């Protein structure tokens, strides 16, 4: 009897649930982007704490075209770490991607592993406080928004919005 109850409950849940693959198919990105050389969570975090309070601007980050249940309430700017600062100084394009579902270090690890493999990326940092992925591309490299969204899916997450250039640095004028 227990077996039957267990299997029935599993089957019902499976029927009621969509698959991640289906979710992924519905995900649409809005912009375009690139990939990193180094990821150092501890040193990056130290820098982040120093950079501190100036990371958020009040306002709405916007939402993706479909399939995303919520958008972030704050607009995250690029988190400046040693590696990101060095990559910026070489002329790499800054990108900030708002990522949904990032709540723990395993999430950050997944993003680091997936994006860190890309040749286009000079530096990256996943900020749990702002729920944002900060990327700086190598000079001349490009990474489309669709590619960023696909990479986030490979990591198990979704991108809600992508900002580039001055917008990623907080210059919205």
């Amino acid at each position, binding site marked *: 009897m227990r077996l039957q109850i267990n299997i029935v409950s599993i089957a019902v849940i499976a029927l009621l649930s969509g698959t991640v693959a289906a979710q992924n198919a519905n995900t649409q990105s809005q912009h375009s982007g690139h990939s990193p050389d180094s990821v150092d*969570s501890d040193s990056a975090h130290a820098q982040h704490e120093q950079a501190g309070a100036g990371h958020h601007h009040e306002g709405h980050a916007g939402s993706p075209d479909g399939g995303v249940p919520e958008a972030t309430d704050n607009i995250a700017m690029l988190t400046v770490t040693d590696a990101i600062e060095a990559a910026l100084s070489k002329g790499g394009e800054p990108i900030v991607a708002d990522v949904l579902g990032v709540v723990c270090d*395993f999430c950050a690890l997944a993003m680091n592993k997936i994006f860190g493999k890309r040749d286009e990326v000079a530096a990256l940092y996943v900020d749990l406080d702002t729920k944002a992925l900060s990327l700086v591309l190598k000079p001349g490299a490009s990474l489309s928004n669709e590619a960023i969204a696909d990479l986030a899916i490979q990591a198990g997450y979704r991108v809600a919005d992508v900002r580039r250039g001055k917008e990623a640095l907080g210059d919205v004028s």
Partner: protein
Amino acid sequence: MRGLALLLLVTSGLIGQPTLARPVSYAGGWTVVEESDRQSSSLFVHYSPASNWSIGPRVEVNRDADYALYSINPTWLAKRWFGSDYQANLYLHAGAGLAAGINQNPLEDDFAIQGGVMADWETRSLFVGYRSRYLDAGRFGDQFSHAARLGFAPYVGDTGDLHTWLMLEIDHRPEAKDTVTAAPVIRLFKGPLLLEAGYNLTAKQPLFNFTYRF
């Protein structure tokens, strides 16, 4: 009955094994999971070909009944809900392999299957989780168990910090001597490493879990 169960598990797409922390990784990720509770100890290594499923070998020693399970356990992330401040998951898990006696247990080896559901909802400071498992270990017997967890983080750490969680696990095993038990657990989480230590207040048994992801 066992054949029917296996057929249903396979045909309903069930794959997986209950673990306490994210049983599916990023595409290409490996995870090592050790778990030890009031009844058994286990070691599980899984690989995620994609971000919605994982598979790997698992060894579990049932200390009470003196047998070991050697199985292949797939896990399917059936659904993930995303929010800017939360993540929720529904997993289906299963496994198939061999049950073998240990410590002079005279019973002969037998085929074993298992399956169940895991679900969790988590923010950076709150956690709610549930998992169930039905195990049919052939002549070593069958067992249903399920457990729920509530947890909170006394502080919110940023990327790379040491994250600390205080949790309470309620475990229900209808055929066990103590059918319902409670275990306070402390979870320490930093980067790729997650450690959990607890004590089952009812069964007076320690609990220790370890997860490493790479």
